């Protein structure tokens, strides 16, 4: 039974990784659009003296949204920072438990943050809050997009926590390492090299 659950979770995790990649790509494209918008604004302001684009306001929203859309992608790449000085000295089984604690702490983080973000968004929506800016954006729109990213992050954290918990229970320590282990230093360095060698 546990074995079947493991296989199911593995499939769900693979889907979560693909989803996280697409969230990150979408966030990246938003950032590219921001580059275009901000550059245009600088140029227009230079030549006309003022700009009709309101890039400052929109860019702030893009920061919030694209960062929250990146959180899950960073997680599946094990790039959220953990201090692993002691971790690396521990036996493998202990590391597995530490990985579970790390994920559970992120789950707690998500419960609080998603809850708080939901409250803020709901309040803006119900109150019809408008941004105190020339665009008068209804604030709930960027907030809802931001909340979406946080909620997706929470979902991926929960999936990974379950997989690691089951992995520990069924003794698949290798798989636990694969899913949630602190990236070995070699891996980090390989990531850097991929960028600079090409």
């Amino acid at each position, binding site marked *: 039974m546990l074995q079947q659950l493991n296989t199911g979770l593995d499939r769900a995790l693979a889907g979560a990784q693909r989803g996280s990649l697409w969230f990150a790509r979408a966030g990246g494209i938003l*950032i590219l659009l921001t580059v275009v918008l901000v*550059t245009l604004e600088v140029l227009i302001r*230079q030549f006309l003296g003022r700009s009709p684009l309101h890039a400052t306001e929109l860019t702030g929203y893009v920061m919030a949204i694209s*960062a929250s859309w990146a959180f899950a992608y960073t997680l599946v790449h094990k790039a*959220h*920072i*953990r201090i692993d000085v002691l971790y690396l000295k521990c036996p493998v089984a202990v590391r597995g438990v530490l990985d579970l604690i790390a994920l559970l702490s992120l789950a707690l983080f998500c419960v609080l943050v998603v809850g708080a973000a939901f409250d*803020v968004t709901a309040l803006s929506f119900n109150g019809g809050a408008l941004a105190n800016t020339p665009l008068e954006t209804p604030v709930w729109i960027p907030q809802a997009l931001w909340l979406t990213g946080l909620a997706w992050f929470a979902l991926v954290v929960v999936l990974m926590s379950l997989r690691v918990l089951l992995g520990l229970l069924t003794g698949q320590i290798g798989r636990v390492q694969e899913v949630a282990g602190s990236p070995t230093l070699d891996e980090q*360095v390989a990531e850097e090299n991929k*960028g600079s060698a090409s």
Partner: protein
Amino acid sequence: MILTSLFVLLVLLLLSVPVASTLIVLGLFLDEFFSPFPLINAMGDVLWSASDSFLLIAIPLFILLGEILVRTGIARGTYQALESWLSWLPGGLLHANIGTATLFSATSGSSVATAATIGTVAIPQGKEMKYDQRLFTGSIAAGGTLGIMIPPSINLIVYGFLTETSIPQLFAAGLIPGLLLALLFVVGTVLICLWRPSLGGPSTHHSWAQRISGLRHLLPVLILFGLVVGSIYAGVATPTEAASLGVVGAFIIAQFMGKLSGSVIMRALESTMRTTGMIMLIIISSYFLNFVLASTGVTQELTGFLEGAGLGPYSTLMLVIAMYIVLGFFIETLSLMVITIPIVAPIIIAMGFDPVWFGILLILLIEMALITPPVGLNLYVVQGVRGGGSFSDVMVGALPYVGIMFVMAIILVLFPAVAMFLPELLS
């Protein structure tokens, strides 16, 4: 209260709990036990206002700029050009390492990226010419740290964001100390190689024709630096706008060099988002902790404690420097910054030190942390690029440069004008 929170912080970090959740949990802990009213109710607003930031988006933009530049392969040309100008000095190629790092720092906001870029180009050449591996790799790791001192700098943006200090002022303040540090690296290397020539390698000479024709390889980097930093100080652009201009410039250069394609852009974006997610999760958590610390009065309590202890401003400063050097051995640098800045910066500023000046001193200490073992990210990056040999080579090779950074810290404390000259000129 201070001791309890410190204890909680250390235990969680040592358990390898992710830094972002550690900060939030600590914030909640302080809220639960020490705040007269529940601060958690404000969490949503605090997180949203930290995230909705025109300033912070400069961070992904500078990361993206670096990602595109790295993928154009312009590092090789730059390295060869600087080698032809600098390798006659005792120490030869070592100076090309430092020079290229300095130049790349002027377009890159990150030390790790700078070290990885230089390492990839330099290390094969150093092996071929049979340089002593220790000082060779050490100079790359140390040179790479200039990336966060010479503007633009992601770490200075983080500092400015958390302490509400002007980013243009901070960038201006980083330029002279960054160049001076590079110069001290060169002088130190020359002295070491005069003392023990075997630690360096052969000096080589190049014709003036070669040198002059190599200069064109420096153009892309200098143009980008001019575009980014120039537009800020010409009053044309804010740091975020300057970063956008820089990204557009990098795209144009990459196109010009025939390296731009859909897949290159996609890879660069993915990589940018991975780093952005890592930095932002920590920053918003730190912003919440910052809010709790200020509301519960921990900061005032600490300041009062230090003042009550009769420590003068300079004794406190020495204490802070010592603390950063020690913590820098063990804690990854971005985490070190966001954990300590909310507590340390207000105290130092309350003692009468200038926030811009302290930002630069802090960045110097962070640079040191990047090359001090056991946790020194730049050491690992260089070792990784090297792909073999003993890690202690890099560690030992970086040591002289740690010493030089220490000298630089003393200079900064004795002569604050080194950092403050440009910002004061501009304001």
